[in-house]
């Protein structure tokens, strides 16, 4: 579904990612783990188009998408949960979610079908989707998110900034799902959350995947991320140094030493 070929991305003169190769197949959870500054987030932002690679290709569904602007990539069905959640603090929970469906109001994503998130069928109707239809689709999508995270329904009128960290993370994930993506990019969803909340978030990720959504998870919490993932990649100073089945990587002595503290 998504393939990175020899990606190089720099900030000015500093090359943060140097020659990363990565592949995500449909229906997979892939974890990308590594220490601080290894280039995990940079890789993710290169996929979502916020950063442009200096060299290399990003191929999504057979199309080269490197260098496209982020809104085009979102409209193709790649949605990102940014690092540090970045919810809109002064908008209500509901408004945050509606903002996530921004592109849907236009009926732009008419082509996509058969992805993991429920309530997308309405979108498949094509360009003649009238305003009323897109409202219904929006309501269905909202219901779906509220089923996934009931706490967001309770708090839909509350301002985003007043939520707890865990709730904000749920909101960020919910917001990203509103655009009805086929591939979800998650940047450190466990950041700054209590372990019990992390378990809950990871459980939701598994559920979403079971529903057919393909997921790329960038994590520092290597143990949890590898346990969850079908496959994993280890990235060090901008290069992928290991890849394999999640459980195999978990048992790998070198990885245990470096990332799992054993």
């Amino acid at each position, binding site marked *: 579904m998504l393939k990175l070929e020899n990606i190089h991305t720099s900030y000015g003169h500093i090359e943060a990612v140097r020659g990363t190769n990565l592949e995500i197949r449909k229906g997979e959870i892939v974890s990308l783990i590594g220490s601080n500054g290894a280039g995990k987030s940079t890789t993710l932002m290169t996929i979502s188009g*916020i950063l442009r690679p200096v060299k290399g290709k990003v191929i999504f569904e057979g199309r080269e998408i490197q260098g496209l*602007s982020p809104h085009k990539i979102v409209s193709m069905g790649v*949605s990102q949960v940014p690092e540090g959640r970045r*919810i*809109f603090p*002064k908008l209500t929970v509901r*408004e945050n979610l509606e*903002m996530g469906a*921004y592109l849907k109001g236009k009926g732009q994503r008419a082509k996509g079908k058969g992805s993991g998130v429920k309530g997308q069928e309405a979108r498949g109707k094509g360009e003649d989707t009238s305003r009323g239809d897109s409202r219904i689709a929006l309501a269905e999508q909202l219901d779906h998110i509220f089923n996934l995270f009931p706490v967001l329904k309770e708090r839909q009128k509350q301002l985003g900034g007043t939520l707890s960290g865990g709730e904000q993370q749920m909101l960020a994930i919910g917001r990203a799902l509103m655009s009805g993506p086929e591939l979800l990019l998650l940047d450190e969803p466990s950041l700054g959350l209590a372990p019990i909340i992390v378990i809950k978030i990871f459980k939701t990720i598994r559920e979403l995947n079971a529903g057919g959504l393909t997921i790329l998870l960038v994590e520092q919490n290597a143990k949890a991320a590898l346990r969850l993932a079908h496959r994993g990649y280890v990235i060090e100073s901008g290069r992928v140094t290991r890849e394999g089945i999640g459980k195999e990587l978990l048992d790998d002595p070198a990885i245990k030493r470096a990332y799992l503290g054993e």
Partner: protein
Amino acid sequence: MLWCALLSMPFMGIKGGAYLFVGLCVTYSVFILLTHTFGKIRKPVIPANTTLLTVLLIIPAVAFPLLAGDYYTDVAVLAGIYIILALGVNVVIGFSGLLHLGFAAFYGLGAYSNALLTTVFGLGFWSALPLTLVLTSIAGFLLAFPALRLRGDYLAIVTLGFGEIIRLVLNNWDSVTRGPNGISNIPAPFIAGFELGGLIFYYYLVSGFVFIAAFVVKRVHRSRTGRAWLAIREDETAAEAMGINTRKYKFMALSFGAFWAGLAGALFASKMHFVSPESFTFMESVFIVCMIILGGIASVPGVIFGSLILVFLPEVLREFQLYRMLALGAGLVLMMIFRPEGLVKKGYKHDS
């Protein structure tokens, strides 16, 4: 009440101090009243109410020049021009969160385009107006190229510099702008062959444009475009991740804002029959930003209200010359402490 007393104490000795005290108390009461009425409206105002409110506002607006003297009608025309200008700035600063400190430049461009098109090229007001609006919108668009690579404080500095560049060009390009002497004898608008130079005519002309501006800006605010601006204001990176084309919408915000500033400038030139670079200094930009902050940032009624106060109050307090700026400054500081959201509080509202 305390701050009123504090504020007025230094003036108690001077002539007219009592008037000032009373004036401030009245302002304060109005402020409290507004805080209590406007501040509590949380639910969206239903359309019927809005219509009623508009009608209620139109009656005094129409009757105003007939009741008030020439002097206050004149001030009202100026206030109207500032309302249009502030609505434009509000699109950029209030809706989109782009701290633009050079708006006097677009205002000046509008005024000078109108002045040059009418005096040098001999066009009438109505044929010069669309050209002026196109020109200022393009200027807004062009400025967006260098400016939108920047965010926050850096954007403020660049736009401030842009404002100064325009003013200096107007001041020094003698062959075209006649430098500091300015351009005089700008003709009044004609309708059906009649020159309409009277004060009352200007009052109704400007009021008409104020209503159009308020209506259009409000509608755009509630559109998809308005929602994109809101997302950019709240968090640009997140907006990008939502699939919003931030570049496009920032260009739109700047052009749209500049459009209204150009309209205000054209009206100003036509009303004054004279323009000079002095009217478009950095202080002017600051003054406009004060209006939208005082009234309530991102709120259309708030911006109108803020502009009215900031134009009328100094006129009403003209007797106190030096002290009025002091009072204004103190007023703004107090606003920031006690009601940072402005006199009219308003967030983003649903239509549902």
